[in-house]
């Protein structure tokens, strides 16, 4: 077993340390992406004309290879985790903005009208009515964004030691230890599955009001993941 978990010292982390680093580099960008997507999505719903250019921009950002991002960012943020996380955060927007927009649009017209007619102002209507009802759609987007982000962190190995579990792939080649590559791939996959399961659980807790059959988010998840393409193959 040591062949799999004996991490070379030049990675400067234990196996568990690599996992912690990987999670940090994967989840912080998604979280920041969500915080950005919530107001952007609301604006896109409020001003219809804004959505196509926003969607177009986020898609273009998504199409930029991360290595190109790194070349630009290294001048400003150096060979740091931040350089890895900024592109990941921008990538997450391509899934999260449509998820927020679809979520808010899924609020029935009568519900919005009823809320307005009860004297619930626009800000409170967003926070108290629209966002909670958008949770299933947003969570569906969050699941796709998170899984994608966890797999993409590995590109950080391109700028030195910032790929977390991805660095194991480089190390595996360097030291001719294919077991490390297996560890990297399997651990990344397991992490993605575990985080996804946690998100499913969180959603269940947040939406006790959803009918158990015909959960809308399944359809939404299908459309959103269909829209998301892998930007590049991870080397």
């Amino acid at each position, binding site marked *: 077993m040591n062949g799999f978990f004996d991490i070379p010292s030049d990675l400067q982390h234990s196996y568990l340390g690599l996992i912690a680093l990987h999670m940090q580099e994967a989840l912080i960008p998604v979280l920041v992406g969500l915080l950005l997507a919530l107001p952007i999505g609301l604006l896109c719903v409020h001003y219809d004309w804004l959505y196509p250019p926003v969607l177009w921009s986020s898609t273009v950002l998504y199409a930029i290879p991360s290595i190109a991002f790194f070349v630009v960012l290294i001048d400003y943020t150096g060979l740091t985790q931040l350089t890895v996380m900024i592109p990941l955060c921008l990538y997450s927007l391509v899934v999260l903005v449509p998820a927020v927009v679809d979520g808010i649009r899924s609020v029935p017209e009568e519900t919005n009208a009823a809320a307005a007619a009860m004297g619930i102002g626009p800000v409170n209507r967003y926070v108290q*009515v629209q966002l909670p009802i958008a949770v299933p759609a947003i969570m569906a987007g969050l699941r796709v964004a998170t899984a994608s982000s966890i797999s993409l962190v590995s590109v950080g190995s391109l700028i030195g030691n910032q790929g977390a579990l991805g660095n194991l792939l480089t190390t595996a080649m360097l030291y001719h230890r294919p077991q490390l590559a297996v560890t990297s791939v399997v651990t990344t996959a397991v992490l993605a599955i575990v985080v996804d399961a946690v998100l499913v659980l969180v959603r269940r807790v947040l939406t006790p009001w959803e009918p158990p059959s015909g959960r809308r988010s399944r359809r939404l998840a299908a459309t959103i993941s269909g829209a998301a393409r892998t930007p590049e193959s991870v080397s």
Partner: protein
Amino acid sequence: MIAIEEVSKRYADGTVAVDRLSLQIPNHSITVLVGPSGCGKTTTLRMINRMVEPSSGTIRVNGEDILRRPVNALRRSMGYVIQNAGLFQHRTILDNIATVPRLLGWSKQRARARAAELMERVGLDPGMARRYPYQLSGGQQQRVGVARALASDPPILLMDEPFSAVDPVVRRGLQEELLRIQSELGKAIVFVTHDMDEAITIGDRIAVMRTGGKLAQFAAPDEILSSPADPFVEEFLGADRGIRGLSFLSTRELELDRSQVFPVDSDWKRIAGRDEASSSVLVTDAGGKPLGWADLATWSGDVEALEPYGQSFEVGRDSLRVALDRAVLAPNGQAVAVDGAGQVLGVAGQETIAAAIRLARQRRAADAPQDASKLKAAP
């Protein structure tokens, strides 16, 4: 009192939704806005709580221009019920109903106590308090919608086609419930519908609107039925407005025939021997409740062998329309009249009812000379 004065709504593309509409909507009554789709009835309703701002004209509530009040405060002073209820699907029934009290700053406890009280008022099982909207039927959701609108006890209730999306049986139940609640609370209710029958059932006054946002007629339901203002209103009322108008005529003065009614323990031989007795008599039980019709020439005295009498009507409560309906459906053309306890007061044939209709019409014409002139003028 809501005073709508010369109000118009024009959109940027030139469409006129409402055209110089004036309406006085009194307190303690149900005013129905009715008309075909695109007649501006919903727009009119939404201008009252400023969901839509009028292009010109003023709307006053108890004398005060609604534009002078902060919009959210204005809206919280008016209950709003919408088609499909528009419940907050992420909140329990109790919290849905407690929404406006919470917005008004009530404590959670007080708001929920009030919500529980309202659930009872609209006929919802208290066991539903912790359920979510998806667990309720359409009719139940609509009851929650009404309860939510009533939560802060607003003096005005705006209802936008609230019962249009439920099936006819449930709709009738909801209409009856609304009338019952209104008799207890006495709100100023503005009710929008495209269904003339619904308007007639629940309205104290009906505003018939025509395409283009114009008022065609504003009157009490029986007046609209008996004297529609123009061919548009007449057409909108449909073919059977004469029959429907009977809903407003009481059965109290109907001349009932008691000579054909006999309790089951009568001396049947003596009755059969009477000259004046018709061959068909209504047999009641010892308590006076109807059992069925008997043909004296052939009846053996067996209660099981009686001809069914169909349904009875209650004198005073049911209208001449119900009485006529019963008579038409009865095999021998005789409707059975009962009192509140279900005891037979007599029977009324179709001719008797027709005579009562003529009498009621004449009396009405004598009572209201203006109406009479309109009656003659109407085609």
